[in-house]
């Protein structure tokens, strides 16, 4: 029996107060995500229940009960307070998927500070722009990543503390560096949690747009109301489930549904801190008897590529519910999962800005392979006419996905960028930037982005950011960045480049530029292909026409070229 039940019944009777009541929250009271995800579960008599099963790539395993994460998050919080860091300041987590990342997230929230998780594969430039923008006070990291922080610390006057969670004493600590060991520190039994309220800022996730630098999406503690109920109803998490969310908490899925959702429900979840390998993933599911699995289309397509034979080596019969997020899930992947696992992956659609799943295929309801599903009760979603931003009255029309703002986990602003935030709304609708159509049954079908942002492997990459970084390479004169189709990642970054006099296009130069971007920004932003060209298509006013290059990559009509410089 699913938690969700019947769609029409849920939609008719829905109120966010259902979630508030289940959580025991009343409007106006203190609400702190850190407390709800640890102390409250202990108070419910589940202190000894396993909260987190963690496994590293070497096979090392650690198990934490809910009482453990309560104590250790208290320990984190006290350590932060002892450094003199105050509520409201930004504290960054820049770590691999180690236990300190999950538990530190809750500890930071307990102090009233704003937690800023960043993907540990970011290069120093990506790290710098995000820390600079947030004026981050402290960063928790590992010794393997600290050199990236050292390279930029002198440009970050607000960064007072660089906290190394696995310091081994082999090399001396440097300027502003502090060692902290979660497990070796004295456990803090009693910690007075900072009294945060519904609108107190909680999490700051950065996301990429078409123009400008990455934007900090600011969420508040009240987001818990959405994250709790969607984790329960959409991921169908029950008390006896073993849940595995494969997302990294450097991205919003890894926090909304890799930390807040499951922990607020008191569910046991497991984490594999390892790179992708089909065999390792299947072994992990078998070993931990995973029942609910939340993954991404890129990973699913990689598993498909690994073949069906390997699946027969493992007992995956524990799997009960499968869901997917990050990019559209193609019908082939849904049909494949039905064939090999006996159940479909359920696509879920949402964004960093929405904070929770807003459109989805619900458990227990028919899945239409290729569709992102129907709006979550309490979410009003529509297809807007791009011309006037009014909803299309009839189904079948392709337009912009618009959402009526007001649900609990909707972003409250972009950090220090109110203008960009306001630009996300038209006619009272939040514009997702995605194009889609709705069928007569109310299912929504993704068509494409409405801008130049590249969705690679479920992560957004700004072409502007990559182009800016490319220009810093000594050989690059001009650049244009677009997406190109990819069978695994849906799309990947491709760069068109003209070289400066004195440089010659070559395979080695291509590799050098690729590695330059990988180290400066991130592996996601690294162009998977660089095409050297004599010139780039431009308007007469000199603006590079990305859409012409994009159309060429995707085999689409080029469209109007009347403004092209050399037409």
């Amino acid at each position, binding site marked *: 029996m699913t938690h969700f039940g019947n769609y029409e019944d849920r939609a008719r009777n829905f109120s966010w107060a259902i979630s508030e009541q289940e959580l025991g929250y009343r409007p106006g009271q203190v609400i702190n995500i850190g407390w709800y995800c640890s102390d409250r579960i202990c108070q419910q008599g589940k202190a000894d229940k396993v909260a987190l099963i963690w496994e590293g*790539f*070497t096979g090392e395993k650690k198990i934490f009960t809910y009482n453990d994460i309560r104590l250790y998050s208290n320990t984190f919080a006290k350590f932060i307070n002892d450094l003199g860091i105050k509520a409201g300041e930004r504290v960054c987590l820049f770590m*691999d998927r180690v236990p300190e990342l999950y538990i530190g997230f809750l500890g930071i929230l307990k102090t009233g500070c704003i937690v800023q998780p960043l993907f540990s*594969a970011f290069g120093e430039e990506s790290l710098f722009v995000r820390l600079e923008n947030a004026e981050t006070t402290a960063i928790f990291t590992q*010794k*393997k*990543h*600290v*050199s*990236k922080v050292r390279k930029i610390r002198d440009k970050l006057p607000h960064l007072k503390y660089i906290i190394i969670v696995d310091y081994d004493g082999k*090399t001396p600590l440097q300027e502003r560096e502090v060692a902290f060991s979660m497990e070796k520190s004295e456990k803090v039994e009693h910690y007075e949690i900072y009294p945060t309220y519904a609108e107190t800022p909680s999490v700051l996730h950065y996301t990429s747009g078409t123009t400008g630098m990455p934007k900090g999406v600011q969420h508040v503690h009240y987001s818990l109301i959405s994250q709790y109920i969607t984790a329960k109803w959409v991921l169908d998490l029950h008390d006896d489930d073993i849940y595995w969310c494969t997302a990294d908490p450097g991205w919003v899925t890894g926090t909304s549904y890799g930390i807040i959702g499951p922990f607020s429900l008191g569910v046991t979840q497991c984490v594999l*801190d*390892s*790179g*992708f*390998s*089909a*065999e*390792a993933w299947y072994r992990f599911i078998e070993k931990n008897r995973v029942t609910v699995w939340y993954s991404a289309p890129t990973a699913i397509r*990689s598993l498909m*590529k*690994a073949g069906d034979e390997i699946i027969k080596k493992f007992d995956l019969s524990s799997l009960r519910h499968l869901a997917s997020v990050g990019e559209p899930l193609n019908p082939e992947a849904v049909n494949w999962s039905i064939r090999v696992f006996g159940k479909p992956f359920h696509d879920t659609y949402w964004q960093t800005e929405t904070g929770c799943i807003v459109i989805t295929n619900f458990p227990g309801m028919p899945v239409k392979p290729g569709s992102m599903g129907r709006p979550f009760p309490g979410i009003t979603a529509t297809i807007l006419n791009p011309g006037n931003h009014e909803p299309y009255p009839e189904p079948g029309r392709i337009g912009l996905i618009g959402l009526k703002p007001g649900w609990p986990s909707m972003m409250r602003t972009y950090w220090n960028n109110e203008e960009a935030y306001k630009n996300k709304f038209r006619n009272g609708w939040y514009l997702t930037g995605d194009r889609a159509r709705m069928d007569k049954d109310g299912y929504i079908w993704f068509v494409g982005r409405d801008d130049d942002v590249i969705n*690679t*492997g479920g992560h957004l990459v700004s072409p502007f950011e990559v182009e800016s970084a490319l220009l810093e390479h000594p050989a690059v004169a001009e650049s244009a960045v677009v997406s190109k189709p990819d069978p*695994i990642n849906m799309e990947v970054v491709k760069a068109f480049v003209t070289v400066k006099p004195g440089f010659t296009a070559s*395979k*080695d130069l*291509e*590799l050098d530029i*690729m*590695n330059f971007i*990988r*180290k400066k920004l991130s*592996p*996601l932003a*690294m162009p*998977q292909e660089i095409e050297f060209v004599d010139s780039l298509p431009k308007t007469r006013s000199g603006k590079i026409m990305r859409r012409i290059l994009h159309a060429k990559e995707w085999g689409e009509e080029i469209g109007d070229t009347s403004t092209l410089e050399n037409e």
Partner: protein
Amino acid sequence: MDDLKEIIKNYVINEYLEPDSDPIDYDTPLISGGIVDSFSMVSLKRFLENRYNIQIPDDQATPEAFDSVNKIADLVRRFVKA
């Protein structure tokens, strides 16, 4: 080809490891160990193709085949010989 493994190892150290990282050997897990992710694997593959003038088909450039210096060396040898 005698120094193949050493060339691959040094490339991984220079390109993918931070200065204070733990040392690696020929069997250190690169992909499953999080040293080289699936996106970065493209640049490693490109390096091998450029250096040894080979083409590694995408269906053979799997995470498993790239998971250690030894495995990568085996893969490269197959194409250099072919």
